[in-house]
């Protein structure tokens, strides 16, 4: 199972599912992140710092812990 926090820089992925409880799902929905969306990782912070991602034309910094709840698949 591939999660978003294990994705390297400049890779493009598609969100398959969001794990975690209501609050996490709701928080991600608010930020415009849904299952099925395409995400590209632009940068990842030093020492497992936050991920800087692009989704639907929006730039978001996402903590590792919340990123580890997002199951993704690599888009070829």
């Amino acid at each position, binding site marked *: 199972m591939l999660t978003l926090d294990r994705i390297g820089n400049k890779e493009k992925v598609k969100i398959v599912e969001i794990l975690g409880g209501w*609050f996490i*799902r709701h928080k991600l929905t608010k930020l*415009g992140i*849904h299952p099925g969306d395409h995400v590209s990782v632009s*940068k990842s*912070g*030093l020492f497992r710092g936050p991920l*800087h991602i692009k989704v*639907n034309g929006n730039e978001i*910094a996402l903590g590792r812990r919340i990123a580890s709840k997002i199951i993704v698949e690599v888009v070829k």
Partner: protein
Amino acid sequence: MIVAMAGQPNSGKSTLFNYVAGYRAETSNYPGTLVRYLKSKVNLSGETFTLVDLPGTYSLISSELAELEARKYLLSGEVDVVVNVVDASLLIRGLEFTIQLLELEIPLVLCLNMMDEATRKGIVIDTEKLSEILKIPVVETVGVKGEDVYELFEKALEAEKFDLGRKPRFSKDVEDIIEYLSDKLLKLSEELKVPKRLLSKKLLENDDYFLKMIKDEAILNEVSKSQKALSEMHERPSDVVISSERHAPSMNIFEEVDRVEKAEISLRDRFDNILMHNLYGYLALLVILYTFFNIVFTLGGFLEGEILSLFERDLIPTYFKGLSYHFVSGLLEGVAGGVGIVLPYIVPFLIGLAILEDVGYLSRVAYLLDNFLHRLGLHGKAIIPIILGYGCTVPAIMGTRILESERDRFITATLTTLIPCAARTTKNLGIGGLFHKSKCCPWGIRPKSFCHWDCRSSSLKDAS
């Protein structure tokens, strides 16, 4: 007539509000809470209306206090027109909120703000088509430049004539369940004064506030039955089903009205590449903070010297002589000390910090230091009140309101009290001067009072 402005955080709502009403706005709190909103009377082409700037909200779900209060206000029945402010460069996310607002069944005007930013990103929006699809007026604005802002509110005043817009339909099976549940909720919807479809969707989304409102056991059973049916049909939790159903039409509408052209690679992107770089970013952070504090203390030192000498050398000895000199100087030097030592550092500090905030650097700092602050159990955002603490502790503690949880606010507020504010730093360095022979401070920061104390320390030594 009451016009409420609703929109997601950073959509430029407050800029629009300040443009038409800022100078006489009154800040109010929602009863019993610390959630604030702005309110002002506005006169536009002969008509007077009350403009309300609601706190920025991402959705109409009650996961945060600000969102809950904004929703309560929108549902209170007082609002005549809602102006939905959307960041045009983030249209998809904005449309999801617009679709929720349509459910309120209050006349709605869609404002595509920050059009200049969208153009820079290469986004071209067909507003007429958007207006046709949603059946609501759509106005493009650039809030910071004041472009078309008056047109927006003129449209809002006419909005009573428009119909309530067209809500995108969800898939058939989801609609069926919403319909089924809404029929059961007739009585509750009248009691709470919430449109029944909105209520049934929110309940399917597991909205805590509305769920607690249900006293009737039978209705609760119906809700959980419908939730279960929905999640079994789609093999996902029911709240995900509803939010996906809202996301899909936003994507479709976006694709219909939007044309993406080649984006300019802006100066900002290039700066970001350096400022958020894993190595250069931290070096830049050190350089920027060093320069920032150096400017603040150099400028502050200069101002302090001027103000103190104005009082001590010019004002007091000129006007008072003899006994009155000793009496007045004792009184005024206390004031001079307060004004002359504290203000020269805090004012440049706050101005400098406001500039860093406005150019967006503080959120980059939050990104860079997120990892470190997580080790303290905090979010990266907590760095903003902490930096503010170097200026003054009081606004720093007030600034902790940007943090989401009570726990984070508590930890950050406690930490900021341990950070020496500008006045304390000057005093510390001054007292340091008493015990330190060299005239140079180890960090190159050398406020005037340091010197001041330094001279006194040498005279103390001479005396001994």
